[in-house]
């Protein structure tokens, strides 16, 4: 994906992601692609946090995918980590172009059922975005850091803040 193509996609993702946050009552949401480009975020207070979570989410996705293949499963539908106070839900948003990684952190105000339910709606909304039919596939794993920093710069600019 070219850096010039990111603002359109990030703008297009904003409404469906905010709707998901509202409906699911999630605390933190992050959408990255497989190379770690940050496409949407909500709930983080610093780019440092986003960078760490984006990196770890991409790594968790890669390792879980490898595990799925070892177990003769094409892929997992989602990963769920239950904590005492906070839980994490990690899933793929399928799009015609490439899968995006969704990371959701939620607490007792939400539930796995709610997150799963509204994830389905988010997934359908994102898959229908015209921007994800037009942008080029990212295929440069070596550009991870560069792309991640470019994404962070964009999501933490004042104009990109959640309303």
């Amino acid at each position, binding site marked *: 994906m070219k850096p010039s193509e990111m603002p359109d996609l990030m703008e297009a993702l904003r409404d469906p992601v905010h709707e998901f946050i509202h409906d699911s*009552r999630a605390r933190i949401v992050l959408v990255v692609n497989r190379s770690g480009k940050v496409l949407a975020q909500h709930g983080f207070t610093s780019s440092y946090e986003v960078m760490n979570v984006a990196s770890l989410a991409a790594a968790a996705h890669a390792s879980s995918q490898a595990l799925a293949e070892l177990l003769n499963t094409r892929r997992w539908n989602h990963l769920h980590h239950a904590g005492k106070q906070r839980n994490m839900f990690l899933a793929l948003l399928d799009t015609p172009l490439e899968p995006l990684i969704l990371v959701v952190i939620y607490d007792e105000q*939400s*539930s*796995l*059922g*709610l997150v*799963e*339910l509204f994830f389905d709606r988010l997934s359908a909304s994102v898959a229908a975005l015209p921007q994800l039919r037009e942008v080029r596939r990212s295929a440069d794993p070596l550009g991870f850091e560069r792309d991640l920093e470019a994404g962070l710069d964009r999501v933490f600019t004042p104009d990109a803040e959640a309303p």
Partner: protein
Amino acid sequence: MSDVYVDTVSRLSRVPGVRGAILVEAAGGVPVTAEVDASISPRAVAALAAALFQRTASVSTTAGLGRLRRFQLETAGGHVLMAGAGELILVVLVDDDGQLGMVRLETQRAAESLI
């Protein structure tokens, strides 16, 4: 899966006027077992019902009225009954012309049997 859970939901769903019953794991908002029409998504109903039950339970405790035991919604097409059963919530969908008193009684008995 525990036969007790399956039997409880199956028995409730056979009460006249009951459109379906779902046993929900309260914290996760996910169905444990369900008997509903194919047009109804147990997963969606479980998630939303659990959220509603827990919110309502918060109202009850905040108001100093203690633990929420039952909860009933009246809708244009019938009723939704919810009863707490420890870490579970029993959700029963009732037709508008269903024998609500009987269903309430059976729902409460079923919930108590699960605790």
